[in-house]
């Protein structure tokens, strides 16, 4: 360091205002060149919102295209059928959206869902528990599974991708061990309240599963966008270090999100058991990919910090419409995975292009 220049620029008995005024004068030239145009920033802001609009646009486009392609598609009964078909997926995807936004992933959701189905059916069929009590226990068991996933991930520091890959396998084995590999049937009367509420119809038309989906997503959307916890979820995934420095317990936030996801797997298991009155040990195999696809198509990035429940709903709707549309069009069932995969890649492509234009 040059001692002489330092002595010049830092006079003794410095009068603060004089120095500040001097800086003022010297700053006047540089000032003009440093200030960037504000107009560019406005359009960048619009780009950030473009992702949500593009999902909505794609959903509407798909709906209109399928309506033209087959007159059966826009029928109310068919739309309600699609809504019911996506409702279980959307319930679990709501939890996964929380997890993704906080920067974590859960690959065990399909197994958790299948395992909890066996647990719920066994509690009712083998232990003779009241189905509602059994459902509460199952949801609590789901939260407990999430607690384990979250605790191992955040306290031990193993990436959630690995931890939940482990629980994926463990819980699938658990479902097989618990059931002996056989379906578990519950013997409830056809008009039992549990069956009607979990998977009946309102006014003989609208499936109750759709109401479960709406309830879960509305509550989830509210928590995420309107509450303090929701703000902490976004902060945790957006910049974990910043969140920690601001006093947010990011490990707690993530663990709660794992627990929400697990609990919602329990809700989904009850919705499915009400529909089939049988629990199958292999239920949910590979389901995690569909659920994650819905979340990603809905605009929630894998690395967190952004996303919305509305986006996830639209993502689930896109997947549901594709499956349904292909059936109505008489396309080969083998084509369905190809179509789904293409949509996922297209969604990521849009994300990447938006992000590249932001730079």
């Amino acid at each position, binding site marked *: 360091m040059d001692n002489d220049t330092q002595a010049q620029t830092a006079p003794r008995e410095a009068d603060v205002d004089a120095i*500040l005024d001097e800086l003022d004068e010297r700053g006047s030239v540089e000032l003009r060149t440093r200030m960037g145009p504000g107009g560019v920033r406005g359009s960048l802001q619009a780009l950030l919102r473009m992702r949500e609009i593009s999902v909505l646009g794609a959903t509407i486009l798909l709906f209109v295209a399928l309506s033209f392609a087959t007159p059966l598609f826009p029928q109310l009964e068919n739309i309600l059928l699609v809504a019911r078909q996506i409702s279980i997926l959307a319930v679990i995807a709501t939890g996964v959206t929380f997890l993704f936004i906080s920067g974590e992933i859960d690959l065990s959701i399909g197994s958790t869902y299948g395992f909890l189905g066996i647990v719920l059916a066994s509690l009712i069929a083998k232990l003779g528990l009241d189905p509602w009590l059994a459902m509460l226990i199952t949801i609590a068991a789901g939260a407990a599974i999430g607690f384990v996933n979250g605790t191992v991930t955040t306290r031990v520091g193993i990436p959630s991708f690995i931890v939940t890959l482990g629980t994926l396998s463990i819980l699938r084995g658990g479902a097989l061990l618990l059931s002996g590999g056989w379906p578990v049937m519950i013997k409830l009367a056809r008009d039992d309240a549990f069956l009607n509420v979990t998977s009946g119809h309102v006014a003989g038309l609208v499936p109750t599963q759709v109401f479960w989906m709406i309830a879960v997503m509305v509550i989830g959307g509210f928590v995420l966008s309107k509450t303090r916890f929701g703000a902490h979820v976004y902060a945790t995934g957006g910049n974990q270090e910043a969140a*920690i420095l601001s006093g947010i317990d990011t490990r707690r936030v993530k663990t709660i999100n794992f627990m929400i996801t697990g609990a919602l797997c329990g809700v989904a298991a009850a919705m499915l058991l009400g529909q089939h009155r049988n629990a199958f040990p292999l239920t949910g195999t590979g389901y995690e990919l569909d659920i994650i696809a819905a979340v990603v198509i809905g605009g929630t990035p894998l690395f967190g910090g952004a996303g919305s429940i509305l986006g996830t709903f639209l993502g689930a709707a896109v997947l549901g419409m594709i499956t349904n549309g292909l059936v109505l069009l008489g396309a080969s069932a083998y084509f369905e995975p190809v179509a789904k995969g293409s949509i996922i890649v297209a969604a990521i492509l849009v994300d990447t292009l938006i992000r590249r234009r932001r730079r």
Partner: protein
Amino acid sequence: MTHEAVSSPASPTAAAPVGGDRPLIELRGINKLFGHVQALQRVDFCVYPAEVIGLVGDNGAGKSTLIKIISGAYQPDGGTILVDGVPVTFSGPADAMKAGIATVYQNLALVDQRDVAANIFLGREPTRGLVLDRKRMLAESVEVLQQLRSDIPSVETPVGILSGGQRQAVAIARAVHQAAARLVIMDEPVAALGIEESRKVLRLIKQLKASGRAVIVISHNLEHVFSVADRIVVLRRGRVVGVRQRDGATASEIVHLIVGAEHL
């Protein structure tokens, strides 16, 4: 590395307070190890209310480690922290915040995807019942940014698309906004700023002092340090090698302390 600093210990007589008679915060004999590296060694340090401390030292002297200990981000391996004369333990930044210590980090610690208001209230979002009080967040964010005379177009702008200076303003606004903040720590607050915005920040430091808050400023720019600091604390290789009143100190004296006499 233990031989040189011992010869010029921090002189208590050079550390007379400018406001109040009891330190707001006092560190006694703070040690911090990273593996085998002694980042801080028996550091004594105190800040009085309404006092501006200039914390200077070469890269790796331990400045950032020291402020992270004061702000609760790191826990010392030895020594005592006293707030208002009472020994405390900060197990995290939340504890330090409760004690009225707010920090502006060099990397700013902003969440790019979130808007200005969300960043200013990060971790302390106000609620009405269960719901975030967005109205209050927006109003108070506008207010604090106006105090800074910031040119941020809207408090609902995502921070990620702001300029470097604007991002700095958001980070400082957050520290200032913490109503209970009695001590604001700034790590190189003007390093990334243009001259106009640097000047605003230096004025802001004076405003903080006028409002009775203490400020610790880390800066490599001695000109800035001399223009705002009441007291200058020099760190060198993890030790406090000098504490000087601004009035009466010379820049060359400070430079000597920073680089160590053997280099001159």
